[in-house]
């Protein structure tokens, strides 16, 4: 579990204090906001935090405790390198992969699964082996994962025409034309899965920078997924709904605001060959919080929670002055570091690394992030399933809804009866991201709770009395949006380059938000740092 029980209780007490307006308009359950620390983050932006007066020497400062920062620290610790600190703004590490816990179940705060990696992703396989998830390799050299970690059947269902159906693509009521387009689309994905460039590289790989940069691949990025579909004449409403769902789910974007490159990446990168199923998914009740826990095991004492890096400046060649604010102690802290791993989103780089503006004029502003709302709904009892229709699954999607539906947190704990926690997701997919963020933050606890309730009531009319509480998490910058033209932009390619001893690590640097990308960037940045400090061992990548 990400949170120890006592910590959780403390944080939920604080959260219930925030929920002071509950019951005023008679919701029969409690609802509260859980982190992230929006205020603290915004104070950084307005420069309200004081400057430190002294600077403690340290070899490396890792700024940011999401998967990238944790991955970097994990890599450093794996080399026996101990002279570093990891600063995390929140009270606990994990970022959007964090998990929570209450009396009923562990649950994710955000990212809740990772596709089982192929043998081409050594860092993730190493992590999974450490966590006991990877059990070995089969005769073909492909990894074997513990059965209990793979998402158990039934995996997905969709609600349409008043009942639940198996799968995410709605087969019920599909016309021959729909089916033809569906098969044509997947044939095209198979083609891309098989495609190789002159150097034998695949078009789409995870991590993505292993893939081909051939013009044919890059050309996909110059159009939206919608335009790409239009050009092929694929107009099937249910196919486009299905693909847009994929865009909303993976990128917090629509067909129009997703690059065709990213849209195809979603389907082609996880195939090992044509016709084969996508990789199975690995998931845990606490979502990717499971992997967060595994990562930090190696360096837990190096983590400084509730500490926010406010600025990074080069003092002299090889010396970086890192300014930070310790929210717990309410005082500024400073480090004099040889290297920094900057494992925060790029939009924060603009605030914390002043010299970056001059160095990379092509723009930090090309990075845009979709806001998300994640609500954990604790249920005293599951609603009765109708006699007809597909049974409760891991992922439960509502076709006629702006939400992504809900994931059952107890599914992977094998629990099929009794109390449970459902994690409900909604990305804000509009084109104007600032407006979308404002729209989300304008919603009070009650508004959010009512929105979720109304959404769930469409498919579970009797659910209201079964709800014990809702914990609402608002991510203002949940995931980088792979807009058309962004995934192969110069700005994105240059953002990975070190700057004055600052090494960058974040899933943003791939243009798409994936745990695999974040981990790989973390490991890469740490290995760059180790090499620069003369500690380079064999690469883990």
């Amino acid at each position, binding site marked *: 579990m990400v949170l120890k029980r006592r910590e959780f209780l403390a944080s939920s007490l604080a959260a219930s204090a925030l929920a002071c307006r509950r019951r005023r308009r008679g919701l029969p359950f409690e609802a509260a906001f859980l982190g992230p620390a929006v205020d603290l983050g915004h104070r950084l932006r307005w420069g309200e935090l004081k400057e430190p007066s002294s600077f403690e020497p340290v070899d490396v400062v890792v700024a940011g405790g999401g998967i990238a920062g944790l991955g970097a620290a994990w890599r450093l610790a794996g080399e026996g390198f101990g002279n570093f600190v990891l600063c995390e703004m929140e009270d606990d590490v994990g970022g959007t992969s964090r998990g929570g816990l209450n009396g009923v179940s562990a649950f994710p705060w955000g990212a809740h699964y990772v596709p089982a990696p192929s043998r081409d992703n050594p860092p993730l396989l190493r992590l999974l082996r450490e966590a006991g998830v990877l059990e070995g390799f089969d005769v073909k050299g492909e990894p074997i994962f513990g059965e209990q970690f793979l998402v158990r059947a039934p995996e997905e269902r969709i609600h349409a025409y008043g009942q639940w159906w198996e799968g995410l693509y709605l087969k019920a009521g599909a016309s021959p034309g729909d089916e033809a387009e569906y098969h044509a689309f997947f044939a095209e994905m198979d083609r891309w899965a098989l495609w190789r460039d002159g150097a034998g590289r695949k078009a789409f790989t995870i991590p993505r920078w292993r893939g081909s940069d051939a013009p044919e691949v890059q050309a996909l990025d110059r159009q939206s997924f919608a335009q790409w579909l239009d050009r092929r004449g694929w107009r099937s409403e249910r196919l486009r709904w299905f693909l847009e769902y994929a865009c909303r789910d993976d990128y917090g974007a629509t067909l129009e605001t997703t690059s065709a490159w990213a849209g195809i990446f979603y389907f082609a990168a996880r195939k090992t060959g044509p016709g084969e199923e996508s990789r199975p998914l690995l998931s845990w009740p606490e979502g990717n919080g499971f992997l967060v826990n595994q990562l930090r095991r190696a360096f837990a004492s190096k983590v400084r929670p509730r500490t926010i890096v406010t600025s990074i400046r080069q003092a002299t060649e090889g010396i970086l002055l890192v300014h930070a604010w310790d929210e717990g102690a309410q005082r500024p802290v400073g480090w004099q570091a040889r290297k920094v791993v900057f494992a925060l989103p790029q939009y924060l780089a603009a605030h914390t690394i002043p010299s970056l503006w001059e160095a990379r004029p092509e723009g930090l502003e090309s990075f845009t992030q979709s806001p998300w709302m994640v609500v954990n709904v604790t249920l005293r009892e599951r609603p009765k399933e109708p006699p007809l229709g597909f*049974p409760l699954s891991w992922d439960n999607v509502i076709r006629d809804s702006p939400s992504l539906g809900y994931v059952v947190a107890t599914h992977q704990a094998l629990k099929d009866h009794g109390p449970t926690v459902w994690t409900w997701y909604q990305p804000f997919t509009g084109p104007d991201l600032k407006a979308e963020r404002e729209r989300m933050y304008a919603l009070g606890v009650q508004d959010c709770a009512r929105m979720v309730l109304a959404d769930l009531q469409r498919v579970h009319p009797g659910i209201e009395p079964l709800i014990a509480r809702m914990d609402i998490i608002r991510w203002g910058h949940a995931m980088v949006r792979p807009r058309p033209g962004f995934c192969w932009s110069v700005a994105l390619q240059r953002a990975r380059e070190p700057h004055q001893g600052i090494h960058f690590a974040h899933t943003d640097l791939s243009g798409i938000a994936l745990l695999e990308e974040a981990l790989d960037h973390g490991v890469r940045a740490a290995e760059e740092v180790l090499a620069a400090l003369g500690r380079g061992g064999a690469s883990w990548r």
Partner: protein
Amino acid sequence: MNERPELPAPEGWEEAGPRISAPLLFLTVLVIAACGLVYELVAGTLSSYLLGDSVLQFSTVIGVYLSAMGLGSYLSKFITRGLARRFVDLQLAVALVGGFSAALLFHTYAHTHAFRPVLYALVGAVGTFVGLEIPLLMRILKGQVKFKDLVAGVLTLDYIGALAGSLLFPLFLMPKLGLVRTSLLFGILNAFVGFWSTFLLRSQLGPAFGLRLRCVLVLVCLGGGLTQAHRFTLATEEEIFQDEIILAKDTRYQRIVMTRGRGSFQLFLNGQLQFSSADEYRYHEALVHPAFAARPGGTRVLVCGGGDGLALREVLRHPEVREVTLVDLDPEMTRLAAEQPLLRELNRAAYADPRVKVVNQDAMVWLQERNQGPPFDLAVVDFPDPNSYALGKLYTTRFYRLLRRQLTKDAMVAVQSTSPLFARRSYWCILATLEAAGYQVRPYHLAMPSFGVWGFALASPAPFEVPRHTLPELRHLTDPTMQGMFAFPRDMERVPVEVNRLDNQVLVHLYAGEWRRWS
């Protein structure tokens, strides 16, 4: 059975009213008597189903009923005016109380702990009302008929009516209609007699509109009840269950239904037959004893599922067993098996055995979370067939691996594995899954009337031979028949199938496809 104190009609209490049709009123006596007896039989039958010990149940029900009739007869002397009106009102009261008695009793048993008080209150009420009716009727007819003819006529028809009820009940009503409908039907008959009486007695009633309206209301209530009688079962269950439903209970996890008919009783979970008392011994002997025979001497036994306690009964026959842990999801099921008389008798009060420990939890979650306690020498896995994902997970490699962690190195496991004839691929899928989870497996099978051909798997983490010697005192199994179960005829031989894993649950699909062909 229907004797009652003969009350001489006191002379000169009421004025004799205008003439009414005596023979037709005598006919109502016949109906009333039949109805009264039927309610009594319904209560007696129902309580012996639910509480067991039919001699005790019938004796007490009859005793309460007759004494209540005595009470009613005595109370009749306090009714001095409006005899005809009271008579009709009583008809309606009996109609309502008697008519809904079976439904009310089933409901009480399933949802409260007050079955006996409600039972005797109902029987007492019906008895009292019926006891009031005959004296009232005699007094109504007093001036119309000679006293000797009156007494002869009323009592004759009273006893004949009782005979009619007592013959109709076992021969026609119970088998065709069941308890709930029978009592409702007789309620309607009672109410109809009330309605009819308003015409027969109209000369004594005065304005009868209100009374008739009441009659119609009661008739509508009972008629409504009759059309809703299926609510005690599901509409589909009506077709599934060929026999009378004696218990229906929705627990948090499943719907438990017990039926009774043709000299045996049956248990269904979510509409699936779990056993019939007529031939379950074949199944449970085959499930349990080969595992003991293959590796004698096991002292610590695990039973997964099998909340009915019947596998437990077979396990407990082995004196060397010192400890049995039974893990069943549903506490209502194990409670019922421990307390319901028919079940308790059939499982020989297995739950009262001090060697038995009950855990009410999902067996898979329990296995996953159990990280202390000594390993088991023998496990009996007796889950319902894999007709849902929640059940299908209990047949996966993951389940069998979790189970293996709790076993000794050479433990024996017996697994109920659906029918190798009706669901051949499902059967072999279960066996292939056991093998994939690291067990040595031997298939065996059995024939029984209620299930047809049924299959099991005998498995162990260590190699073992076909068992040769079993207990001498069993009803079905002998040494040669036990060995014979391990021979497979050609139409049930192994077929290639995929292994059932948590992340594919192929078995649920296989099973649904195969059984669809037979239904």
